């Protein structure tokens, strides 16, 4: 019966075209969602869900030995605040940020200005500063581990006369963090240099020409032309450098394991320790929420800027 009534309806000349256009229109309307679906499935599973998962788990006391996590409200957060190691870790992370980001940025800007000229040595020089970007951080850390080895490491051998030998760089509470910072600066300066080079190349040469005719000093030109016109680049580098500073972990894992006495223990490394060595799941989730809050704050500070870039840049 159903077939019999269905067949003539399709056969009629007026009904069929309406049906197909409807179907086509629906397919076109569905298509963007189908195209976004693969990405959204993975984003949902590995970006959105883990955020919610961490938020929820941070309200529970949970460890690998306890079968059923118990709801404890905000107690994980208050416990974290009271934890002297956590305070130390936060202080270390901000010290690391303050010690690496401005120095790396100043260095990369300087390098970009020095290497923004036509000369046969420019390309080899740029390569020399850029290549650490391509090295795995863990491989770079393995090399630098030797640089700092007491007794016969490069630091001791070459700085022997200046500072005297036998310094245990990575074992010293005062030197360990700066020493890890130096490696980090070395690794990233060439990468940020590229952004500054790209930025410098967008500044019209006439501006400098005009400055020179007016008799402006080098420093005056820098103040009036270079620095303001590189503003967007500086903000962009500041954001990515800050985000990457808060995610520094590989070099810590290999060089110091957070020591001595937690002096080089940074946020992400602390999450690794708590979650994968101490198996304190509730605390690891709480720490993750904290790190996310820090990253979100950095993002929020720069949001207006980022949005403008993404929406209006051609």
């Amino acid at each position, binding site marked *: 019966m159903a077939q019999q009534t269905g067949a003539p309806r399709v056969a009629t000349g007026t009904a069929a075209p309406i049906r197909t256009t409807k179907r086509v229109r629906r397919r076109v*309307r569905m298509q*963007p*969602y*189908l*195209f976004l679906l*693969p*990405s*959204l499935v*993975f*984003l949902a*599973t*590995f*970006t*959105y*869900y883990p955020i919610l*998962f*961490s938020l929820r788990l941070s309200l529970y006391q949970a460890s690998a030995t306890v079968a059923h996590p118990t709801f404890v409200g905000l107690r994980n957060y208050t416990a974290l605040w009271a934890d002297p190691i956590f305070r130390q870790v936060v202080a270390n992370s901000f010290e690391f940020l303050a010690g690496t980001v401005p120095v790396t940025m100043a260095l990369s800007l300087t390098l970009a200005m020095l290497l923004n000229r036509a*000369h046969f*040595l420019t390309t*080899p*020089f740029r390569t020399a*500063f850029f*290549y650490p*970007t*391509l*090295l*795995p951080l*863990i*491989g770079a850390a*393995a*090399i*630098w*581990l*030797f*640089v700092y*080895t007491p007794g*016969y490491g490069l630091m001791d051998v070459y700085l022997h006369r200046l500072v005297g030998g036998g310094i245990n760089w990575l074992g010293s509470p005062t030197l360990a963090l700066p020493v890890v910072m130096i490696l980090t600066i070395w690794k990233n300066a060439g*990468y940020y240099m*590229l*952004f500054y080079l790209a930025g410098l190349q967008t500044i019209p040469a006439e501006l400098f020409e005009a400055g020179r005719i007016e008799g402006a000093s080098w420093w005056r030109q820098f103040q009036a032309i270079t620095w303001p016109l590189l503003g967007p680049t500086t903000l962009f580098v500041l954001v990515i450098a800050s*985000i990457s500073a*808060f*995610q520094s*972990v590989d070099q810590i*894992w290999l060089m110091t394991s957070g020591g001595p006495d937690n002096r080089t223990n940074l946020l*992400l490394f602390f*999450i690794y320790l708590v*979650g*994968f060595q101490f198996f304190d799941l509730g605390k690891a*989730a709480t*720490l*993750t929420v904290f790190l*996310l809050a820090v*990253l*979100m704050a950095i*993002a929020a500070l720069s949001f207006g800027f*980022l949005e403008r870039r*993404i929406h209006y*840049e*051609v």
Partner: protein
Amino acid sequence: MRRPKALLGTSLWALVVGALAFIWVFPLLWAFTTSLRPPGQLGSQIASLWVHHPSLANFKEAWADAPFLRLYYNTAVVVFGILGIQLITITLAAYAFARQEFWGRELLFRLFLLQLMVAPAALIFPNFQTVKSLGLLNTRLGIMIPYFASAFGTFLLRQTFRAVPRDLEDAASIDGCTTLQTIWNVFLPLAKPTLVAFSIVSVVYHYNEFLWPLIITDTDRARTVTVGLASFTQSAESGAQWNLIAAGTVIVILPLLVIFILFQRRFVESFMFSGLKG
């Protein structure tokens, strides 16, 4: 009057920048020369860049101490597996954002944006729990899966797709191309430089990644080179076998360095481009 002054300036420039550049490459040079130093020659000489009788003995030993072939293989599968899937997901999503009108586009775009701020590295702990419950611990798929969607790649490609002339797209659909055929025949060929740039950045990033593969694997079955190098370094460090560590490090960093030297321009442009549009 002017020319000698300029010459002096250039020489000074070359001297200062050259000295700094030398400091920058010194660790790498040291790693190379030390890896070639015969096992017996240690002591204070180890800090010099001169090798008296270069030998490959360290490489032989390092190669025997760690399963580098297996590690290379795992890394290649992981790196190209991620890239292959990413190219599909970002192409489809970028096309939708660049050329299609649909309800919720702004909101979905912002949701994508979130991944740029909340990088996967910050989510190692919850994502480990997810990979674990999916039964993917100790697998290469477990290492790859969080990276299959890339907001960064989507944005990069969306910008490129927006610049594709409408006329070309219309011509393709008049010729009877479906949307997918249009993407394949019109959009992707025009986006080749972007695709190359994204691929280089993606491969370098995932080749070098360490902490995530470390926590996902606890045997050599699925481990990548960086994880292998880390455990290798830790065991050799205790014996202060620096020539061995240097050889292991060279084995791990060499593939990317060689490709970089061959395609230097492309690499530098890709990384520059990635930042400009990221």
